């Protein structure tokens, strides 16, 4: 399609055409689940039967509707403050989707940018970026994220920045490796000989060619980021209460666990697992389809 347009688009076109035409082994269920989650996140206000943050103390710890004591008003029961679990799960999807996607994109832009600079420019830029990457990788991402969260304080915005800062190093490593091999390819050498500026080469010749890897990595990262967000919220350094993040719901669920109020522990965890599993399945498929070089990962 429109082959004469700039090379910037080739990566994106290749992505689009592959995704639509070569659908062998396409994880339909996983993709639909992600689609449903995004839909739920967008229309949370319409779908949720109750306000997720308002409790009714008279309705505390109601079980789901099919259990004895359940009420049709609260299909999946209520929590320790009498808040509707279904509504909280629905709004929780919004938090997980928004935080997950923005953090992955933030980490991706930062990591890909630095990876390209580091790989293409080489020399001291490369040394600095790679040594910083090493040092940041020395701290497990969770510990690093907890530390950052403790320093800057919890808020949804800060969580995105924290997760981005904790995970950009993975992109930087992989993208740098790809850039190093791209640099030896003829079209890049020709561009250099033709007198293109470094900026133009990086933007028009290198970036489109590493975009596939960045997208694959991003999909695979989505699961990791969602789990980390849940863990941070669970520990009380993530999204602050009374916002209905799934990790926060699990932490609250502990209060009713000893009394056997299983739905407060089982349901939010199921949501996390289903989302992460879907992202992983889609990521695995994309990796094989889009980027044979990443199959080893």
């Amino acid at each position, binding site marked *: 399609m429109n082959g004469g347009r700039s090379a910037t688009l080739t990566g994106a076109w290749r992505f689009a055409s592959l995704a639509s035409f070569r659908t062998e082994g396409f994880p339909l269920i996983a993709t639909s689940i992600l689609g449903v989650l995004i839909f739920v996140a967008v229309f949370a206000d319409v779908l949720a039967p109750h306000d997720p943050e308002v409790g009714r103390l008279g309705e505390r710890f109601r079980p789901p509707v099919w259990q004895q004591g359940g009420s049709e008003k609260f299909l999946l029961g209520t929590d320790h403050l009498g808040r509707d679990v279904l509504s909280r799960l629905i709004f929780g999807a919004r938090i997980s989707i928004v935080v997950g996607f923005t953090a992955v994109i933030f980490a991706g832009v930062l990591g890909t940018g630095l990876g390209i600079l580091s790989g293409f420019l080489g020399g001291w830029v490369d040394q600095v970026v790679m*040594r*910083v990457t*090493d*040092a*940041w990788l*020395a*701290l*497990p991402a*969770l*510990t*690093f994220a*907890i*530390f*950052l*969260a*403790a*320093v*800057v304080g919890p808020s949804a915005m800060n969580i995105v920045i924290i997760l981005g800062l904790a995970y950009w190093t993975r992109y930087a490593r992989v993208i740098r490796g790809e850039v190093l091999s791209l640099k030896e390819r003829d079209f890049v050498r020709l561009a250099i000989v033709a007198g293109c500026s470094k900026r133009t080469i990086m933007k028009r010749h290198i970036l489109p060619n590493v975009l596939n890897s960045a997208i694959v990595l991003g999909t695979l990262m989505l*699961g990791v980021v969602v*789990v980390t967000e*849940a*863990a941070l919220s*669970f*520990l*009380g*350094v993530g999204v602050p209460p009374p916002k209905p993040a799934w990790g926060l719901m*699990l932490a609250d*669920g*502990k209060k009713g*666990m*000893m009394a*056997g109020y*299983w739905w407060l*522990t*089982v349901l939010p*965890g199921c949501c*996390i*697992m289903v989302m*992460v*599993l879907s992202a*992983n*399945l889609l990521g695995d498929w994309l990796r094989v389809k889009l980027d044979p070089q990443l199959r080893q990962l």
Partner: protein
Amino acid sequence: MKRYIAKRVGFAAISLVLLSVTIFLLVRLTGDPTVLLVEPGASQADIEAIRVQFGLDRPLWVQYGHFVSSLVRGDLGHSFYYRTPVLDLYLSRLPHSLLLATAAMAFSLLIGIPTGIIAAVRVNRWWDSAGKVFALLGLSMPSFWIGLLMILFFSVYLGWLPSSGSGTAAHLVMPAFALGWYFAAAHMRLTRSSMLDVLGSEYVKLARLKGLPEALVIGKHAFKNALIPVLTLAGINLVIMVNVAVVVETVFAWPGIGRLLYEGISFRDFPVVQATVILNGAMVVIVSLLVDILYAVIDPRIRFAR
């Protein structure tokens, strides 16, 4: 060999320096560090005293020198909550963390290696698919949720195991399982791919050609070499486990380093948080250095590369 070790030690040292710079700068640049270093509710005079004591009114590089020199002296500050040096606290919790990590590692290897080998030997058959599902589930279920589910099932419904605390072997079972689960999946994946590599190599073909029974080819010849990368990863993962155990330790009230970090966060005890993160990072750097060196001793190809 000496050159290789010197180079690795150099990289590790750079990593440690950058780690300390990162932590130092993040605390200083994201706001007023006195707020973090002073106990909540301290008077204005106390705040001024801390500012002078830590030299927070002086230029950044002077402050960094101060920061590093106290680190080197082993002075990591005092906990607001426990009123003791943070280093003592950390060292008193370390054995619990190592016990939990060792148990979780043993569990993850016991599950991961046999399933990985079976999956590789029966590649693309039923077993392999089952293994893939298991690995995917393991990587997708957050460890703290597995912990909560186990408490719900084994402590609340069945009443078999204690839900929190430490001291007996029964206390160790669930935390070790919850923590080891994810790593079991990772070890399975690596065992499978490493075993597949080895099974395709010339010496395994020769062993088969000379008529060795398949059990011996896999159990003796292939197994040993396939295990090297798995054990290397396990070495590093042991330290990673100590780090990521924070959620599992919180779920089970296990008195390890993770729990210390969690208490540090909940009690706004910043010196504890900072020291735990620095010491954990240093631990990862040092252990990966040791693993690298050990690996070079075992496998000469590595030390002569580049």
